[in-house]
């Protein structure tokens, strides 16, 4: 039993979309569907302006609104806290799509099943990192067990003062951002 989480250092992200493409390959997604999407925001005032890049995917909330609202119980958390979708139970009602504050839910146009980032659970169970972490050229992503105080991610979250997105919503997301 672990409590897997991720750290994304947006200052290291060069917006190469490598993680998104790797994720699409890993999950067999068509080009127009992706589990990782990017937000951009201008910060500062002229001449000291900056563009902040924010890669967003399923935040694997400890208190996921999608799981609460899923009528069929297709959305569940596994023993390691990874939020998953049982594709044999999903009816495609899209209640999770509207419920997710992070807009991380993606309906599959072929099957109608609503999918999302799965933290590459099959890789993680082999002891590897999710493909977006493994492929990141700038080492902007760290994956690991948040419950283990000696894990790299736990140490780096403290060191880099990483915080989750919209913690005020009470969803307790497990992706921490350095911004």
């Amino acid at each position: 039993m672990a409590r897997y989480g991720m750290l994304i250092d947006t200052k290291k992200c060069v917006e190469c979309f490598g993680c998104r493409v790797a994720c699409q390959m890993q999950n067999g997604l068509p080009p127009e569907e992706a589990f990782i999407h990017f937000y951009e925001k201008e910060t500062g005032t002229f001449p000291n302006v900056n563009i902040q890049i924010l890669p967003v995917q399923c935040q694997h909330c400890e208190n996921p609104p999608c799981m609460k609202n899923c009528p069929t119980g297709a959305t569940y958390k596994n023993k390691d806290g990874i939020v998953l979708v049982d594709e044999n139970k999903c009816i495609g009602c899209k209640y999770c799509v509207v419920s997710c504050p992070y807009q991380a839910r993606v309906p599959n146009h072929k099957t109608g099943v609503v999918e999302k980032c799965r933290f590459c659970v099959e890789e993680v169970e082999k002891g590897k990192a999710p493909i977006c972490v493994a492929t990141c050229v700038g080492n902007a992503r760290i994956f690991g067990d948040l419950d283990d105080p000696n894990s790299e991610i736990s140490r780096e979250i403290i060191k880099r003062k990483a915080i989750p997105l919209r913690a005020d919503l009470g969803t307790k997301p497990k992706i921490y951002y350095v911004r």
Partner: protein
Amino acid sequence: MAWGAIISWYLFLAGVSAGAYLTATYVGKKFPFAQTIRKTGYFLAPPLLAVGTLLLVFDAEAGLKHPLRFIYLLKNFPTSMMTDGTYIISIFLILNTYQGVMEYLGKSVNRWITRLGVIFAIGTAAYTGLLIGVVKSIPLWNTSILPVLFIVSALSTGIAATVLVSTFFNRQACYNLLTVKKIHVSLIGIELLLIFIMLYITGSANEVAYQSVMSLLVGEYSSLFWIGLIVVGLVIPFLIEGIEIYQHGLATKPKYHEISATSSNPSFVPTLITESTVLIGGFILRYLVLAAAMTITLF
């Protein structure tokens, strides 16, 4: 938005069905002579809800391909509002179908079954608002007044559909039901007020809510909002029905004017316009609430 026109139709039809059932029950109790309205209401409720539910099935594509999965819909009780709604709608569909069949057969229905039907009709009307009202990530929906607005709109469109269809079968059926018209005009007035309150308060909640409200008032959806919902859907029927009631009050001044046998020239056209515009407005309301939804910002 993930939910578009199909879901708008569903929210609308479920509301009309619940409203028609309530109209029929009310009229049946208060005015036993008004058979056409009662029958129409009870006959309308089941097919409208059935069509609405069928639309949901078509929108849920993965379920459509594997229909057995719909059994799971009953699973996440009471956590998921959609599961709760599945129970409410299923029970209401059974009750109103029973009521409709008995009405057709000319048999009387145990009044407790009708009362249970009333509870589940209100539940159905409220549920359509609760379903989206509990979505915290969309500020335009996440307001307690939305289910109230949807209940009022369900009653209003339910009366409209019942009266409209009744009028086609029996022109005499509805002109004299001044009480129903008075209720209807009040509902339209209340609906206007609720929309104003909802937009005003929601608009002050946060930036995204403000933008949602602005997209209705001055932005992308403003013409549909002002012309379709406010003018056509609410103000026109409010005025026509209001004038009708006012004139009726001038023409006949009996103490007890629930039924006026003297109603000279039954006004078919105003009824037709009022009730159809209310129905159009009812659909536009559902459509706009879904279309103008925006998810909260992440930073």
